């Protein structure tokens, strides 16, 4: 940990070697974060690049209070969010639809590989993806999400429910009845 602190300080004074070290340390993890927020790898790569440039140009402001990884992750999320805002005009449409929760057995989900789950998240419509990520992965509540994304609390709740619904349907379609589908084809 003391070593990380040193590296951070070196980065703050512009040491290129320290910057590379820091990048090697955190890039894979942060790429994972960016991938969740992006629709594909290319967008995630762009965001990771922009995020790291932000990290290096703001690292001198990091006060060693709280986790560095958390700080970095917030930057990545912010870059992803601001890219999302730029790309998608946010129509102030209230989405108050209620969606029936499908039931899905935990066994099925547990068997699916992380890569495939990631793929499902990436396929979500952009706004649903953002809300789902902020709620589930960053642990923000709907009030916070509504402020970050400039939508109403109701819309946030509804978007989350819709995201869950889509994910469940996809899981069922793809993995739920593998056996029966196989029989059909056979």
């Amino acid at each position, binding site marked *: 940990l003391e070593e990380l602190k040193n590296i951070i300080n070196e980065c703050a004074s512009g040491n290129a070697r320290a910057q590379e070290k820091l990048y090697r340390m955190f890039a894979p993890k942060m790429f994972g974060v960016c991938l969740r927020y992006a629709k594909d790898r290319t967008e995630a790569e*762009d965001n990771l690049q922009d995020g790291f440039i932000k990290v*290096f140009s703001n690292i001198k402001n990091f006060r060693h209070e709280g986790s560095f990884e958390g700080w970095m992750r917030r930057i990545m999320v912010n870059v992803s969010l601001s890219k999302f805002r730029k790309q*998608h005009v946010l129509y102030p449409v209230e989405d108050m639809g209620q969606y029936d929760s499908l039931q899905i057995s935990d066994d099925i989900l547990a068997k699916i590989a992380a890569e495939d789950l990631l793929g499902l998240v990436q396929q979500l419509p952009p706004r649903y993806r953002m809300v789902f990520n902020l709620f589930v*992965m960053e642990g923000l509540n709907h009030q916070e999400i509504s402020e970050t994304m400039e939508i109403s609390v109701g819309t946030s709740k509804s978007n989350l429910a819709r995201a869950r619904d889509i994910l469940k349907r996809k899981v069922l379609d793809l993995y739920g009845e593998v056996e029966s589908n196989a029989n059909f084809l056979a």
Partner: protein
Amino acid sequence: MKEELDNMDKIFREKLEGFSEEPPVFLWDNIQATLAGQRRKKRMAWYSWSAVAALLVFAFLAGWYFNETAEKVTPRVTESETVKPADKQNIIERDIPAPVTTDIEKQNETIESDRLLADATKKRSIQKIQEEKTSTSVTDFEDKETRIEIATAGLNLMEKIEKPEFKVTAQEPSFTLTKKDEPDASAEFLTWEQKMIDENTRELARITHENSGWKLGLNVSPGYSSYTAKHGATYASNMTYEANEGSANLSGGISVQYKTGKRISIESGIYYAQNGQETGSSPQLFALRAEMDYAFAPAGKNYFNTAVNLAGNRMAMNSTAGIIEFEELPRGAEIAANLESAGTYANSLLTSGELSQVFDFVEIPLYLRYLVIDRKMDVELVGGVNAGLVVGNNAYINNEFGVQNIGKTLDISTVNVSGTVGVGLNYALGKNLSVAVEPRLNYYMNSINRNSEVDFRPYRVGVYTGLYYEF
């Protein structure tokens, strides 16, 4: 609807939380290059600002210095001068004034003042006096000159200034300058004296505007702007057709000149100018671009057919001055998929019409002017640098739907440096007012685009026409 995580959320979270993946190798290179670029940019900005600051300090000090010396020199001339009136005969034949006796102890100083006066005028007669050295006489027009030169030095010296003037009017041989009493002595001027005085006044009006002082100018210029550009190979293979066409535009501004001496002056001010480029994309038969013919373009009209990069709801196009980011698809344009072309991008933008990229600059000049020919029509050489601040950045497509603003060019630096050279013709309308016509060339010394693939340097030729007021 519950707010806590449901079961599915938990599984997603557990699985994705720990998920990490090695990003592609080139990403670090990109980051490194961007960081290096930022450092370079910071350094450049620092250099240019300190250069501008240094130049301003220099201009200020130079102005202050010349101002100071002007004030110091003139009082000495008046104080040292105690001259007896010149012989009447000599004044009449003013081409060859004969020596006049003076107090010997004052001789040196008087000669010195003669020399100073001689500097200020081109009258042959005075030079003759100076060559002879024996002469310490101060003739009519010399006095006048002294008076006007002194007048520029300050009001508090006016009393002293009047001394030499008085001497001229006095016809009595023993009259001394230090005892002036009646201002109406001028009534005693002879007609030929009055004529000479008038002539000298006219001559001096011309001469004074050559000496140190301020000049305020207001000018406009119709101009033609174009550019020189170089591009990286990959960039160029997806770029719009590069037509070396410039555009006509209008610029203008306010200038302030400070004359430091007879021939040199320093100029600053603030100018507005426009630079840019225009292109219509012709069919590129052999380039690596979209090859689909855009058959709907009216005959004889330009159209383009250029690869565009579509990513994440954004559309970007490589153009001569840099990457244009579209705000929306322009009216009358279509996107086509590049099915068989070898370009890097999968899509092309097709539209008739012309593309133009326009940059608005506010330029703050620091010029040096050198007076080459000093007549009623002056000729000056101008040269110097400008800090060019980009205040406007727009791209337009002009097609059948009119001129549409489609977005802007990315990576344009805000602060740029350009150099200017020109020749000025300056015609005096009156004592203080003059009109000038000045062809100038302004060339950007750095690429105004930071993108390393694009080297775009606009230049502009303009005929600056304006009014100048001296004070």
